[in-house]
């Protein structure tokens, strides 16, 4: 540093040149020193991960790393085998224990620009320190290790120190001592409660809580205060917002018209509840990845709602475009975003870098990307009802059981009767037409759903075949023929019937259906935003009492992957709705060319029906269509006699249960499709595929257990692989995130990147300790937060102790608590709170975004939301991708397109302009002023104190009061307001409060 300062002060360029030559000669002299005589600044034992690898990654791997496509000279230095292989010249690049025999050592010491490594044209060069590190490491045996974060964490016991509260302090103190730093004293109580309150709840402490804490002199006063904020419901609002940065939370899809993501806010509420209830982290991971597939659902104890499934909204928070000209590319982009967010969020890995080529730095081959791709390609998007409750599931089960009872009852009555021989029953002719060019995609005339997925509850697990149909007075009229029906358990229940994936090969798809307010859609390449101009024909309304032929022209998409979706209810601007009376029924689905073909019956005529067997099968839900037809003939001819009044009890009960269920609120969720193993896209192009598919799996380059074989997507296996206790990343990544949110910087600064390009941990042993503790104590996030907040390290004052600046200019070793600016939400929420304008209502649909004249463009909502967001906390304000709130953006809330575990902290004039001139801020100052003026029994000093307590969580110092009074009086004088009216003048106090909002202390955690 000094050198450059001196250097910069010299203006004569010739002199500069001379000095450079001088320094260079000193430097080059040191190149030729004996390499065995290591400087004392080198570590005693050179560690591959912490000392050598950073050099290799930055300076060597671009040409000698894991990516074969950019490898030079057939040499790779990322593996032991590669680096120690015999070179052409008979030497080894690295000869462990023998720096003198290692080609690497020779090449990095060359002066000749044609031979030196790295080559000059790479713009990279090694410092002497780096050369020494490499040499000493080879000298010590050149031990390779897997990347540090891929090695399981292990405990390294720290030395115990006197002033430690817990182990964190021991680990921290170790470095403090070795770096010769001085610890800052414990922060004052005012600072501590403000710090804890903001970091745990995102709000400043109220004056009342502040005073309680100041007055509490008990030994555990701090812990009580911490517990209070941990149990405050505002805690969930703060920590949910952190997680929303990680999962690119937004409520619209962006692009041209910014369509809504239906029910996205349910995910926000889900997170708030989960953080408040301290749902274990491993459970949260599983719910977000596979909440729809869990064996044990987490039911909301208050309303019986299925919480687990809400987690899967995680997948639908991305962008979406209507009318993509290349429909496949739309799917590719969507899945790419999911892979990107999933791997960054839970594993701190940047797997999407491997979309086009093997990862340049991490052991992630392209095939690993496509093994994840298959998982998400096999995952389908589906509306899901929010209010599926534990009870609803029970009711459905009860209805099924009652229906079975009816069949068993009737069958037992009928079995004792005499029947005509089946040959006497009228045979139907077999009308098979030969000609037609068609193929059956689904046939529901039999008993089962022909391999289709029945999602939700409406369609049940089988067709209607053989269900008793009652007329007036509970008179049995017939048994139902086979069809898929969404009203098996009554109308108004959500369900969707979806075919297996198929490749479109014929011009048309036909669906034989009837229903009300229902739709059938052809989903091509998982594309959902079906509308004109291109895709409008892929959805058809079902509005018919009689069987109708729905004909879809899909000739334009031959060769594409597709499935058919049959669903009661409709989409309005891509938001799913289910009217009470909606239902849909379907007989069969075909693909065909030309005219609608004659579809043959599915009944068998090979042998006559034997009636007792038929009844027996019927009672067990396994009767064939021809058996049901035979039974129906007997019913029609009144050949069954007997009193069926007993079944009234059953059917009444069924009616009663059916009336109780209706799904009204939905979110855009996911559901499992059929397993698809993807091919590799050559150089990332979906138009150029590899020959073979790659099996679904998880990061074969890092984890050993990796092939998924499930019939569905494999998301459950993915979730399990992530929460596997053997996974070295999951816990480390999460405790590091928590640390980052509390201390302002992670132990690993690159919180979303634990790969080779990420930063190394400042305290690796502490990170491992915390990761194992987190795991061993049941993944409790609250417990981990409390543990960190209780440490002495967390409680230190922000003032930098003398002498530390030079040894630790960035405060990496935490001798003092880092000063930090509050986040956009905390600033806005604090303004509302101190002004007495905060509406603490939790949850619910978002408050529409306030639209300034600068927020223009397609998709702009017709109406603006309120300027102050109705006083609601920022987390409840709408997040429209194309109309993001300027105040949030300006104070660095990230644009929601990828994982942002760490926000930028910028310093731009727009921030000052907001606090100075934004009408919202000014209005809050006015409200606070009004409250202050209304406190009629307070004198000027006391009024100032109230403002300080509310905004800065402390009393004003005497000189601050003097300054304030001078300021207020001069304002009064300029406005010609007499002294005695000053205390009642709102304008004056507003100007003062507005000024306080503009103090740095108001937006910084001091």
């Amino acid at each position, binding site marked *: 540093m000094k050198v450059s300062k001196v250097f910069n002060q010299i203006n004569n360029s010739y002199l500069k040149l001379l000095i450079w030559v001088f320094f260079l000669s000193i430097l080059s002299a040191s190149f030729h020193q004996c390499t065995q005589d290591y400087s004392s600044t080198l570590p005693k034992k050179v560690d591959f991960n912490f000392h050598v690898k950073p050099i290799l990654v930055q300076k060597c791997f671009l040409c000698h790393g894991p990516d074969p496509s950019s490898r030079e000279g057939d040499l790779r230095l990322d593996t032991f085998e590669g680096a120690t292989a015999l070179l052409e010249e008979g030497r080894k690049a690295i000869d462990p224990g023998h720096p003198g025999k290692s080609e690497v050592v020779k090449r990095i010491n060359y002066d000749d620009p044609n031979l030196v490594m790295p080559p000059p044209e790479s713009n990279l060069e090694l410092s002497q320190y780096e050369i020494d590190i490499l040499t000493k490491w080879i000298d010590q045996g050149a031990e390779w290790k897997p990347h540090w974060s891929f090695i399981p964490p292990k405990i390294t016991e720290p030395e115990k120190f006197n002033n430690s509260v817990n182990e964190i302090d021991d680990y921290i103190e170790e470095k403090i001592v070795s770096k010769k730093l001085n610890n800052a004293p414990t922060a004052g109580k005012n600072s501590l409660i403000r710090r804890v309150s903001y970091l745990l709840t995102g709000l400043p402490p109220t004056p009342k809580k502040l005073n309680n804490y100041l007055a509490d002199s008990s030994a555990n006063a701090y812990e009580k205060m911490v517990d209070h904020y941990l149990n405050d419901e505002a805690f969930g609002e703060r920590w949910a917002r952190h997680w929303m940065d990680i999962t690119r939370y937004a409520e619209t899809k*962006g692009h041209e018209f910014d369509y809504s993501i239906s029910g996205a806010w349910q995910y926000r509420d889900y997170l708030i509840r989960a953080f408040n209830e301290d749902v274990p982290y491993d459970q949260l991971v599983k719910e977000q990845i596979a909440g729809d597939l869990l064996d044990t659902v987490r039911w909301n104890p208050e309303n019986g709602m299925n919480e687990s499934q809400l987690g899967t909204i995680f997948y639908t928070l991305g962008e979406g475009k209507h009318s993509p000209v290349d429909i496949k590319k739309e799917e590719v982009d969507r899945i790419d975003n999911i892979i990107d967010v999933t791997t*960054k969020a839970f594993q701190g890995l940047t797997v999407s870098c491997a979309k086009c080529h093997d990862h340049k730095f991490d052991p992630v081959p392209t095939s690993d990307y496509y093994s994840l791709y298959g998982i998400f390609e096999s995952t389908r998007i589906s509306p899901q009802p929010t209010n599926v409750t534990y009870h609803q599931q029970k009711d459905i089960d009860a209805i099924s059981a009652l229906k079975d009872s009816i069949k068993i009852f009737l069958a037992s009555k009928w079995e004792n009767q005499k029947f005509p021989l089946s040959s006497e029953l009228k045979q139907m002719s077999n009308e098979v037409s030969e000609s037609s060019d068609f193929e059956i995609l689904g046939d529901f005339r039999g008993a089962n759903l022909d391999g289709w997925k029945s999602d939700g509850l409406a369609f049940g697990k089988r067709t209607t075949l053989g269900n008793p149909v009652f007329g007036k007075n509970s008179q049995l009229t017939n048994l139902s023929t086979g069809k898929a029906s969404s009203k098996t358990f009554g109308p108004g229940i959500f369900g969707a019937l979806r075919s297996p994936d198929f490749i479109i090969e014929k011009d048309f798809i036909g669906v034989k259906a009837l229903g009300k307010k229902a739709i059938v859609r052809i989903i091509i390449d998982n594309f959902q935003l079906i509308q004109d101009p291109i895709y409008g024909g892929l959805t058809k309304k079902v509005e018919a009492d009689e069987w109708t032929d729905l004909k879809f022209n899909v000739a334009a998409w031959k060769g594409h992957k597709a499935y058919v979706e049959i669903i009661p209810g409709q989409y309005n601007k891509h938001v799913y709705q289910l009217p009470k009376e909606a239902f849909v029924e379907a007989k069969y689905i075909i693909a065909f060319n030309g005219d609608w073909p004659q579809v043959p019956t599915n009944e068998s005529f090979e042998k006559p029906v034997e009636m007792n067997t038929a009844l027996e099968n019927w009672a067990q839900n396994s009767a064939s269509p021809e058996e049901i037809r035979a039974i129906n003939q007997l019913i029609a001819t009144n050949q069954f006699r007997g009193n069926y009044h007993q079944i009234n009890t059953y059917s009444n009960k069924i009616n009663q249960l059916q009336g109780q269920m209706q799904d009204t609120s939905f979110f855009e969720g996911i559901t499992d499709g059929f397993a698809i193993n993807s091919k590799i896209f050559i150089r990332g192009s979906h138009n150029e595929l590899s020959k073979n598919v790659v099996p679904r799996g998880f990061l074969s380059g890092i984890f050993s257990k990796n092939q998924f074989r499930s019939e569905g997507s494999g998301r459950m296996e993915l979730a399990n692989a992530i929460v596997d206790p053997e996974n070295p990343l999951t816990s480390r990544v999460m405790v590091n995130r928590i640390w980052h949110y509390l201390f302002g910087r992670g132990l690993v600064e690159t919180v*979303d990147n634990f790969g080779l390009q990420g930063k190394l941990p400042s305290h690796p042993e502490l990170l491992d300790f915390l990761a194992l503790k987190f795991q061993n104590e049941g993944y409790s996030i609250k417990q981990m937060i409390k543990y960190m907040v209780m440490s002495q390290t967390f409680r230190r004052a922000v003032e930098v102790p003398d002498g530390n600046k030079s040894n630790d200019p960035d405060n990496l070793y935490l001798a003092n608590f880092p000063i930090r600016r509050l986040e956009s939400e905390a600033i806005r929420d604090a303004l509302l709170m101190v002004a007495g304008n905060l509406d603490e209502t939790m949850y619910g649909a978002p408050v529409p975004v306030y639209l300034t004249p*600068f927020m223009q463009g397609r998709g702009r909502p017709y109406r603006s939301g309120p300027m102050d967001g109705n006083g609601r906390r920022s987390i409840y304000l709408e997040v429209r991708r194309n109309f993001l709130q300027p105040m949030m953006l300006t104070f660095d809330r990230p644009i929601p397109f990828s994982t942002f575990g760490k926000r930028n902290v910028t310093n731009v004039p*727009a921030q000052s302009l907001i606090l*100075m001139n934004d009408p919202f801020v000014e209005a809050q100052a006015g409200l606070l002023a009004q409250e202050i003026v209304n406190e009629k029994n307070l004198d000027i000093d006391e009024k100032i104190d109230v403002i300080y307590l509310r905004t800065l969580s402390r009393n004003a110092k005497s000189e601050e009061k003097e300054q304030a009074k001078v300021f207020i009086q001069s304002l009064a004088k300029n406005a010609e307001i007499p002294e005695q009216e000053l205390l009642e003048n709102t304008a004056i106090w507003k*100007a003062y409060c507005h000024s306080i909002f*503009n103090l740095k202390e108001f937006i910084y955690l*001091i």
Partner: protein
Amino acid sequence: MTNRNHATGRPISRREMLGLCKGGFGSLAFVSLFGALPISCSKKAESKLFSQIPGNIPHYAPKAKNVIFLYMDGGVSQVDSFDPKPRLEKENGEDPNKKFKVDDTQFGNVGKILKSPWKFKNYGECGMPVSELFPHIATCVDDIALVRSMVSDFPEHTNANYFLHTGIGIQGRPSMGAWVTYGLGSENDNLPGYVVLDGGLIPPGGVDNFNSGFLPASHQASILRAGKVPLANINPLEETPGLQNQKLDFIKQIDNSLVGKLKNPDAVESAISNYELAYRMQSSVPELTDFRGETKATKDLYGMNSDDPHTQSYGAQCLLARRLVERGVRFVELTCPQVKADRWDQHSDLKDGHERNAHAVDQPIAGLLKDLKSRGLFEETLVIWTGEFGRTPFAQGTNGRDHNPSAGSMWMAGAGIKGGVIYGKTDDYGYRVIENKVTVHDIHATMLHLLGVNHEKLRFHFGGRDIRLTDVHGNVIKGILS
């Protein structure tokens, strides 16, 4: 210095940076908070800490200091403006499917081959053909390098807009203006380095076309609008001008004692100096938009006396653009005015819509080019005129044209550009490029090149890799450089 914490590579503090840059560049004025600290400065200060950004900026002597980006939102039809195709006249009304392979289109409503409703004439010494749509721009062709071979990766507006503005067709990446100020900073302490003049139409994709993405927020565009409040929150709300000053003095007094107590923390000090800058902007922005000092002749040149209110308003925007580059603002983008027929996106009624849009922008753009020349600003300003893609030579329905990412015309003029040149070629229908294809990445690379920046070296580390405006693509269009 090199031994210091290579594992964490701490960013250098603002104070140190200012100190270093002062010596390195000899002028603090170059360092503006709007462009934050330009790499050109930070590089000098501490090259090892920014090792992901190889090379010094400028990488070579810049031709251009500023860029004015005239965005023709919606996509101008090339065969109706700068790329005449006699064959369309001959085959008007015939089935395009019988002539060439027709790609999928945005509306899938492919009509017949459609001749241009406008006549072309050759202009200037170079004899460049221009249609009747642009009689004023036609008088400037000797200063214009026309590219007839522009292609895009996307046929949809939003993706194509993001692609043109950020080099990637999805939301969230830094806009080219942000990259430019990130690389070069601003030359004006009182104005932002990247300004968007909102003429009335924000392109599909919204203001995210102008965002800083993962670059620091200081690089995002400031959006200026015509009217009483040209920039968000720029006008003080205080009823008397003295009141704000009093408040700011008071705030500074209290803030300073905090700084003293905390022993000069960088972050807090920077936040304080931000207020000074914000305060100066409050006067510099109104001064900027105050045209009283401009002569009638100048205003007339820009078409501000036109009967067409859209010509007037776009003229004012063009004049404002000149005033911005005059003041050292690096990157100025103009969006289109909202004429009756919406943007240049004529899926139907091509004649009416293109005429309205052309009439609004033609005279102001020609006025801008001439005014820049007469003031000596032309040699240091790069003017870029382009839409996000071209349009189809066949009709959509009967009288519109659909999106065509396979060919479009764009032009550049000013600093480092060879005038009177026609670069690239399309087929006989103007449907596809057959010679010297120019991608969006090439446009970016060329723009950066003229600013003295090697597009392969302007990088930012995000999401596990070094990211460039040009991704892994881009070639400087040598054929249009002077």
